[in-house]
């Protein structure tokens, strides 16, 4: 099985090039906890990932302070699923 390919996207792209709505909700803890994020920038296109992730993006919490990296499954400009890498505390301490 070939490893997935991560294709770096140009910084000239905008979020609206990929999705209709930059706000999405990640669901964790057995479908119980809902956390809403906003995509800041799509950084990579992903090909051949065994979990069908299609993009990597920088994200920020929509209703709190924090940033992270999201694996996204984007189809027809809709975010169907996501997995967030640890969100950073940006308090500076």
């Amino acid at each position, binding site marked *: 099985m070939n490893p997935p390919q991560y294709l770096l996207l140009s910084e000239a792209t905008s979020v609206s090039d990929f999705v209709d709505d930059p*706000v*999405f909700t990640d669901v964790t803890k057995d479908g119980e*906890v809902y956390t809403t994020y906003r995509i800041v920038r799509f950084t990579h296109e992903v090909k051949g990932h065994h979990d069908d992730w299609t993009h990597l993006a920088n994200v920020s919490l929509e209703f709190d302070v924090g940033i992270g990296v999201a694996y996204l499954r984007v189809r027809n400009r809709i975010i169907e699923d996501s997995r967030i890498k640890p969100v950073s505390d940006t308090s500076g301490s």
Partner: protein
Amino acid sequence: MNVLVCNDHAEPLDSLIAVLENDTAVASINVANTGRQVLDTLHSQPVDISISSGTGLDFNRMLQRHIDPVVANNLTRVVATTTPSAPLLVKAHQYGFNNVLPLTDETSNFVPTLQRTLKGEESLANHPTVKALHLTPGALAHNISFEDSNDQHVIELVGVGLPDLEIAEALNLTIQTVRNRVAHLIRINHLSNRTQLALLQNSNWQIPDFA
């Protein structure tokens, strides 16, 4: 201290009533055997503290929605029970009760416990079982809020147990939209998770007539 005891057949509070009747710290004691009696007493007489049994917990939560907000805000609510189990403690906390009075304690502790609860010196929130869980007090005590009919449709389908994907299919919405709306509903109702949202939706009903 003016006390209202909400008595029920499943877990009678007769022993507690006998203790309260013989304590000089209790200025008045009313005993209600029906929901109508509870509401009539609360709306016609000064009541500082209302006591319900563990088995009457769910009914008492529903009654809370029929109490004048001014009266409700000044009312201390206690559950008295012989079986203060962890589920009962957590439920009472989530339903907005101030304390749980264990009837297994010495009877001489009953009135002092009620007095400390009334003064805010003793609270269910400080019980070790509850404190360890990082819960929001009274999370399931209020009526559910939503902003428009789209939210209402989503929450109704959450309440009957549909997963997000099926809600999206039923309402012809994208999965992204449904999850954003569920997150919004959890947030504006000050809840922690989806199960609480479904529970609050399913308890969001009123008795049309108490007469």
